[in-house]
């Protein structure tokens, strides 16, 4: 009775062929919000939203392999990048709510995310808590049934166009490091919030600084329990390290193939073949990760896949500039000359630097002793 993987893939392919928007997304601002919401709504209406999410909240509860097949077809159809304004809702907040949220939280938020009604933004990093997330200082003091939040976040993706924020704050003022944090749903229209977009070296401002001045958030918006936010946040980040970036991976492979097709310099061929092989290995690793995640909790392979992807993406972007030069139409893409290349510099920085991720893998996967860093 269940659809074969090949049939599923064929159905996905044909739907995508007919529905993928002709033009890519604007890179920032309200237009990018409208574009992302419209495209999400279209996918939901086509029956392609929340493929692995629980049926109880409108999801499809499909297998991870079907999800992979979807993403592969998605990338093949050159559908809008999944690294858009929906990313936080689909790949951070949604899965976190599914794993740690209350029934009310799930019932209220998951359908809105899936149906393309809301944009979520991030709220973890702070000016002095980048790779060292546990040192964050934004405070939320319990007053009655509310938290009163004061402080500042930075590198908050999509904060300027977001409806809700996944906000990690220190709710036990006496606590330090990983203790006493809470993961909170913050409505971005709450009084006291100021958003200042940050331009990046790649141009568009998809990040922002967010300032909190006595921002009042109901205690019922806490996800995963008061002062238990570190655990919830680690869950959030682990989703990002799983299959979330599968469509991005496939796009990366496609870009490698474009480079191979365009390049006829023997001196570059070895580099390109390494990229090709590594992209194939990334896919093999992701399949393995997906298969394992079907049968039980997966370990830290996810963080390896994420780091592997990040560094491969940088290498591909760099090869592209090397081959085409800085002024070539291939480098122009749709977002301005060199955008993809410049943007790739964030791969080994955003969400914890590659250096800190290497430490974490060495300690958690390999069991090497903790050092000073």
């Amino acid at each position, binding site marked *: 009775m269940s659809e074969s993987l090949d049939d599923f893939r064929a159905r996905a392919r044909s739907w995508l062929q007919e529905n993928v928007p002709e033009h890519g997304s604007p890179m920032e601002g309200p237009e990018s919000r409208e574009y992302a919401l419209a495209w999400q709504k279209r996918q939901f209406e086509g029956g392609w939203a929340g493929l692995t999410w629980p049926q109880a909240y409108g999801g499809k509860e499909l297998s991870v392999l079907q999800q992979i097949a979807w993403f592969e077809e998605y990338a093949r159809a050159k559908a809008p990048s999944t690294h858009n304004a929906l990313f936080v809702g689909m790949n951070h907040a949604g899965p976190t709510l599914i794993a740690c949220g209350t029934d009310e939280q799930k019932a209220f938020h998951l359908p809105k995310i899936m149906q393309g009604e809301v944009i979520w933004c991030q709220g973890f990093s702070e000016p002095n808590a980048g790779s060292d997330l546990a040192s964050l200082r934004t405070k939320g003091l319990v007053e009655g049934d509310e938290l009163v939040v004061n402080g500042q976040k930075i590198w908050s993706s999509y904060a300027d166009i977001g409806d809700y924020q996944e906000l990690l704050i220190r709710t036990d003022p006496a606590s330090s490091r990983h203790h006493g944090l809470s993961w909170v749903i913050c409505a971005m229209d709450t009084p006291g919030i100021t958003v200042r977009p940050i331009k990046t070296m790649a141009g568009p401002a998809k990040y922002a600084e967010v300032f909190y001045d006595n921002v009042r958030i109901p205690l019922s918006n806490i996800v995963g329990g008061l002062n238990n936010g570190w655990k919830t946040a680690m869950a959030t980040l682990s989703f990002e390290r799983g299959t979330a970036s599968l469509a991005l991976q496939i796009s990366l492979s496609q870009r490698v193939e474009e480079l191979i097709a365009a390049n006829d310099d023997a001196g570059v061929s070895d580099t390109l*073949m390494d990229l090709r092989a590594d992209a194939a290995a990334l896919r093999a690793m992701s399949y393995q990760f997906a298969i394992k995640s079907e049968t039980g909790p997966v370990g830290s392979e996810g963080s*390896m896949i994420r780091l592997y992807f990040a560094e491969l993406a940088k290498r591909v972007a760099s090869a592209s500039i090397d081959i085409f030069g800085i002024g070539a139409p291939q480098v122009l893409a749709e977002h301005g000359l060199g955008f993809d290349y410049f943007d790739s510099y964030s791969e080994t920085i955003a969400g914890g630097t590659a250096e800190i991720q290497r430490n974490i893998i060495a300690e958690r996967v390999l069991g090497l002793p903790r050092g000073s860093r």
Partner: protein
Amino acid sequence: MSIFHASAEQLELVESFVRPLEELFPVARLHRAEHTDYDNWVTAAEFGWFGISLPEEAGGIGLSVVEEALLFAQFGRHLISPGFMAASLAAKTASLSGNDELAQKILGGEIPVAIARQTAAGITLVDAENAKLCLVISAEGTKLFPVEAIQQRALLDRTQWSIALESAALPGNPIAQASEEDIGASINLLIAAQLTGIAAATLEMAVAYAQIRQQFGVAIGSFQAIKHYCTDMVMNVQAAKDMLSFSAVAMAGNQPDHRFQVASALVVATRAAFFNTGKNIQIHGGMGFSAECDAHLFLKRAHVLETLAGGLKASRAALRAENSIFGKDAAFTG
């Protein structure tokens, strides 16, 4: 779930195969100049190791290239002579040539086989001193010769590379042969498997040493530089292992992209093996540079296996010749 990766059953089955390996082939044996893996040739044949993926009626075990790749990854860990790969490929070559009788004899362990790579000048033979047949690999496929037909044999080295290397002329008429199309993926898969095993073994060696070796009052594994080397090593192993399993399953299922996948596996495994064996020496410091440490044995064997594959550059060129499923007009077939 075995449509993309080796199944739990396959992994378990191979476990049972590899139990004797530690006893029969401790890596330490390579420190004895007089050792030869051909002492265990008949035992290996009895275990069925030479015919894992050949059908039972042909004298094989009747499993698939998935189990075979997993076994050869273990062979890589134990630095087992490439002659064992020669046996497997020779049996396939004989079988593809329609010479089932020869294939049976090889599988039965009656005729020890060595391996060689065709070069511009002739052939490079590896560990051929106890063999009666020699399987020569080239870009065109495999050719099988009686060892006595090989002329101008000259020993290049037996000690520096921890295995006997000889140069010789390429003989004339082979007694069996197989085309690259028929056997190329098998060659690449088995070499990739052994290189993957080498990458995995050296990762484990490095991590174990980093945990116990103390400098500046702490285990060196607490230093960030060592951690980052080890992280790169484990990512290499994860990539090589998953690529090996994925490509072997694609090959076993005769997927249209299996040659692309296997060619990728070889490139990934070769680079993983070189990086990991080199960093393992560095992490071991002075000890790693000493002859009595195992570290150099893995590096050297990685070079020998790369040579048998025709060299990393040739492996990359071979990958270039394949169509990617990610190419402009290609379809995903999963």
